[in-house]
C-alpha cells in the first residue's frame, strides 16, 4: 500500500516537472533557460525514480515504510489537529483562534485538567496581545472578522 503511495508521489513530481518544461518552452530564452534546465533534469530523475519504485514493487522487494498502524493513526490525528489550528486562525484570526485551538488541544487531545488548559490558553492570548499592542505586529483578524 505504502509502495503505491511512494509511486504516486514520484508520479506527481514527474507531472510537475513535465508541466514546468511544457510551460517554460513558450518563454524567451533569457526567462526559460534555467527552468528548462531544471525541468528536464527533474523530469528525467523523477521518471528514473518511479521506474525504480515500480520495479521494486513488482519484484515484491518494496518493504514499505515500516509504519505501524498505530503510528499512522497518530499521524492522522496530528494532521487533524494541525488542520484545526490553521482553520481556526484563518477563520477567527490569531487572537481568538489560536488560544481556542490551544485550549481545545490540551482538553481533548492531551487530556490535561481545565485549570492547566485554560492557563495555557491565557498565556497564549497574552503573548499575542503583547505582540499586537506593544510590538505593533500585524496579526490576521480572520475571514470572519477581517474588515
Amino acid at each position, binding site marked *: 500500500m505504502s509502495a503505491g*503511495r*511512494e509511486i504516486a*508521489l514520484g508520479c506527481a*513530481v514527474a507531472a*510537475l*516537472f513535465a508541466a*514546468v518544461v511544457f*510551460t*517554460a518552452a513558450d*518563454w*524567451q530564452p*533569457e*526567462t526559460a*533557460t*534555467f*527552468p528548462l*534546465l*531544471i*525541468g528536464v*533534469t*527533474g523530469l528525467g*530523475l*523523477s521518471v*528514473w*525514480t518511479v521506474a*525504480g519504485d515500480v520495479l521494486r514493487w513488482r519484484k515484491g522487494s518494496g518493504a514499505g*515504510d515500516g*509504519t505501524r498502524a498505530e*503510528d499512522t493513526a*497518530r*499521524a492522522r*490525528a*496530528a*494532521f487533524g*489537529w*494541525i*488542520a484545526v*489550528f*490553521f482553520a481556526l*486562525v*484563518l477563520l477567527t484570526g*490569531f487572537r481568538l483562534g*489560536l488560544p481556542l*485551538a*490551544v485550549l481545545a*488541544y*490540551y482538553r481533548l*487531545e*492531551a487530556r*490535561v485538567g481545565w485549570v492547566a488548559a485554560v492557563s*495555557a490558553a491565557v498565556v*497564549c492570548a497574552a*503573548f*499575542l496581545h503583547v*505582540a499586537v499592542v506593544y510590538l505593533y*505586529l*500585524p*496579526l*490576521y483578524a480572520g*475571514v470572519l472578522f477581517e474588515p
Partner: protein
Amino acid sequence: MAFEAFFEALGITFTLPVLGGMLLGLLLGLVFGAVPGLNAVLGIVLLLPFVWTLSPFVAFAIMLSLVSAVHTSNTFPAFFFNVPGSPSAAATILDGYPMARNGDAARGLTAAFMVSAVGGVIGALVLLIALPALQPVVLAFAAPERFMLVVLGILMISFLSGVKPVKGLLAGALGLWLGTVGQDPQLGVARFTFGSDYLLDGLKTVPIIMGLFALPEVVSLAIRGRIAERTHVDMGEGFRPGLRACLLNRWLVVRSAVVGVVGGAIPGIGGTAAAFYAYGMAVQGAEGADRERFGRGEIKGVIAPESANNASAGGELVPLLAFGVPGGATSAILLAAFLILGVNPGPEMLGEKLSLSFSMVIVLVLSNLLATAVCIAITRPAARIAFLRSNLLIPALMLFVLFGSYVAYPHPYTLVLTLAFGVLGYLMMRFDWARAPLLVGFILGPLAENNLAISLASYGAAFLVRPIPLACMAVMALVVFVAVRRGMVRK
C-alpha cells in the same frame, strides 16, 4: 586586516546585547537538545521570525549558541533513554546508554560534556584559521566558478545526506524549481505565479522552512507519545573519573574533533556521519579486550562521537561563510538567516564583514564552554525529562509555527503555504526523501540562475572548461561514483 577585524569582533561580542543573545540561545539550545524530537534545525527555524530585526552580531550569537548547546545537551537522552536528543547524538547511544544501565552515567556524561567543549573549541579554532586563509581562494571565484560550486554543493548534499540519493537529487531539483517562482531576474517576466500577486516576489523562505521542517516534527512528536518509559536512572559517581577519562584519551578527543571538522566542512556529510566515523575510528584503534567493551559501556565510545559532533558545528561554517554553500540542514537554515538579515555569505564575510565571521568563532568557543558547564551542573535534574509527555509541547510549537510564518510575511496565503509545505515535508520524511537538498536548492537557486546567466553571456558554453568548473565536475563524478558504489554495497 585580520587582526583588526578580530579585535573589533572581540569588542562587539563582549557587549551586553550579544552576550545576552548568547545566553538566550544557550538556554533554548539546552532545552532543544535535551528533549528528544526537538533539535537544532527546529530551534533555528522557530527563531528565524524573531531575529530578523536584530543586528547580525546578536542574531548569530543567539543561533550559534543554540546550535552549540544542542550538540552538548543532546547527550542526556542518549544516556538516560536510549534516544538521541538530536540526530548527531545517535552514535553516543551505542555506549552511553549501556554506561547509564551499568550505573556509570555521571562519569560518562561528565566525560561527554568535557570533550564536547574541547571538540567545539577545536572546530571554532579551525574556522578561525581557515577564514583568512580562504580569502584569496574565494576572491578568485567569478560567476562560472560560483555557478559550478552551487551545483556541486546541491549535488553533494543530495547524494550524501539521505539514504536515497536519486530522491535527494530530485528534492534538490524541486527546490531549484521553487526558487524560480516569481519574476525572472533578467526580463521581469512572471514565472509559475498562476496570476497571483502574492507569488510575484517569489515564494517566501520562512513559511517554507516552517512547513518543511517544523510541522513534520509536530507530527513526529505526536507519534512518539511519551518521551521515555523509564522512571529511574542510576547516576553513579563520577566527576573526577570523567575528567580523568578525558585526560587519558586526549589524543582520541583531538583526532575525533578533526574528523568532526572535516565531516562538517564537506557538504552533505555533517555532524551525524562524522560522529559515526569517529566512533568507528575509536573501535579500530582499540585492541583485544578493549575492543570487545565497545557497545557495552566503553567510555571511548562516548568520547569519540561527542568530540566529533561538537567540532562539526565549526566545520559546517567553513563552506557556508567562505562560499555560501551550506554543509547540511542546520547550515542551510543559517544560510536563510544570512539572507533574511541582509548579509551575503562568500567574499563579503571574508572581507568587509570579517569581524562578523570572527564574532561567530568567539561565540562558538564561549557557548561550547558555557553549555558544558551548565550541563555538568544540571546532570541530575535533567533525568526528569523522562516524565515529560511530548504532546504537551505541540501547542507551543504550533503557536510559534503559525505566528512565525505570518509575522515574516503578513498575508493569509502565507498560512496556506506553510500548511502545504508541511504536508510535503511530512510526505518527504515518511518516504525517506531528504528535505535539506530541497531547501538548499530553493535558497541557492536564484544565485545559480544569476551566475549561469552571467557565465553564458560572458563565455558561452566555454565557461565549463575553465579550471575550477572542470575540477568541480571531477568532484561531482567522484561523488556520483561513491554514491552508486555505496548503493551497490547496501544491496
